[in-house]
């Protein structure tokens, strides 16, 4: 597996890392919220370029990782019904539910299809009017607008055989929950750039003020990440706690207001369980009353399906930043991407898999 590739800006990256080392005085723990950022940090060895004072804690921002086991169990139960086509993003197929995964259900004859977009799932429904087509709608604020559009078009076009199993989650309530959790070590956040492309930055100043924590909106490339970390350390050393936008080429203060209007029409906020973390108040979206007939949970009556985690897996501690993946006793032993015990090992954006693919091996 290739990692720490040499890229055109590697020199500038080293200079940014040196600047961070020059200004840092005290130890700081900074959380990158987004799994895409975790992947980029680990893969490019950015966390290892940083001075020892700066510790990166890998946050819960991988939607595949935080989707609760019961959502997978519900998806599998629906997929196994006769006449159903279950459409999902590819990375959900190997995520372990309580008994098996969607891939296994497919092997047993269930019609499970990988789609690139919720809109492709809607197209499948239009082509198969005799089947019930269900889209497993996971993801953060970045992904939700596409799901909302699929729901709206299903309504507008009268596609009656299409529904969504919705498990969308939201970043700001997760930041709130992390700051409130006992023993929290996080002192600053890199907020996920693309979430803010949709939602803007307006949700963050109250959080930064309430918890006296700097929040820097950051992109996904090595230089973006180092720039975000540098700005965070500058604030921490100066005792400031502001919201800063280090990704202005893709993020405006107000975000994408057209997409926000679509989200407000189709979804409403709901308390949602996060895998490994527990229920976070108002941390997710479900279909609003006017769209509730498109809710697969109700259509297939699977809301009662509940589930339990693997007792060995410590992904909850990993997601909260209390444990580094390579310190988990199962990491690289019982648990590898081929035999994942927890969701953080399944998705390439999960912290455990990111460590594994970057060639890091057990330290416990």
């Amino acid at each position, binding site marked *: 597996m290739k990692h720490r590739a040499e890229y055109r800006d590697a020199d500038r990256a080293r200079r940014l890392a040196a600047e961070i080392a020059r200004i840092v005085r005290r130890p700081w723990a900074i959380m990158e919220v987004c799994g895409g950022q975790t992947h980029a940090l680990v893969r490019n060895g950015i966390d290892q370029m940083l001075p020892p004072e700066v510790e990166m804690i890998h946050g819960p921002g991988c939607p595949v990782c935080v989707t609760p086991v019961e959502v997978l169990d519900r998806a599998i139960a629906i997929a196994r019904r006769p006449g159903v086509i279950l459409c999902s993003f590819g990375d959900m197929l190997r995520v372990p539910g309580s008994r098996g995964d969607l891939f296994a259900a497919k092997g047993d004859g269930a019609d499970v299809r990988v789609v690139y977009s919720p809109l492709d799932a809607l197209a499948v429904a239009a082509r198969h009017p005799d089947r019930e087509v269900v889209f497993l709608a996971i993801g953060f604020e*970045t992904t939700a607008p*596409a799901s909302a559009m699929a729901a709206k078009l299903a309504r507008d076009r009268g596609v009656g055989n299409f529904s969504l199993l919705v498990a969308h989650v939201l970043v700001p309530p997760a930041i709130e929950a992390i700051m409130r959790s006992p023993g929290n070590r996080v002192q600053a956040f890199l907020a996920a750039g693309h979430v803010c492309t949709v939602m803007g930055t307006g949700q963050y100043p109250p959080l930064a003020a309430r918890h006296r924590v700097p929040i820097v909106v950051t992109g996904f490339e090595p230089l973006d990440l180092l720039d975000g970390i540098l700005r965070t350390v500058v604030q921490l050393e100066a005792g400031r706690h502001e919201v800063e936008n280090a990704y202005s080429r893709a993020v405006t203060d107000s975000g994408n207001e057209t*997409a926000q209007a679509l989200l407000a029409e189709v979804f409403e906020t709901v308390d949602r369980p996060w895998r490994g973390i527990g229920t976070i108040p108002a941390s997710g979206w479900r279909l609003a009353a006017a769209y509730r007939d498109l809710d697969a949970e109700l259509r297939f009556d699977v809301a009662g399906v509940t589930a339990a985690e693997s007792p060995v897996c410590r992904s909850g501690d990993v997601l909260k930043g209390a444990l580094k993946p390579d310190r988990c006793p199962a990491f690289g032993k019982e648990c590898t991407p081929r035999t994942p015990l927890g969701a953080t090992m399944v998705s390439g954006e999960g912290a455990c898999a990111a460590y594994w693919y970057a060639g890091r091996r057990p330290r416990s």
Partner: protein
Amino acid sequence: MCLAVPGRVESIRVEAGVRMGRLNFGGVLKDVCLVSVPGIAVGDYAIVHVGFAIGRLDEAAARATLRTFAEIGRLEEELAELRATSDPDAASSSA
């Protein structure tokens, strides 16, 4: 799947009342819903996530992002995902 990737708008059409575009992602063409980027035109760049444009990007920034993603090996992963999910059945009916 978290990543959003910049793509260049090659053509725009209205399909059953919805503004759709064919976008070019480092050589891979994909149909994308453009309702959330009103005013976007052929030749412009959009930030696209799961078939839906979530924002616009100026050309210099888009090119720089694509180049960096290519250099760090990220673009290949994303393009592989795009290619893997170009279901020919879906492509023929949506074209």
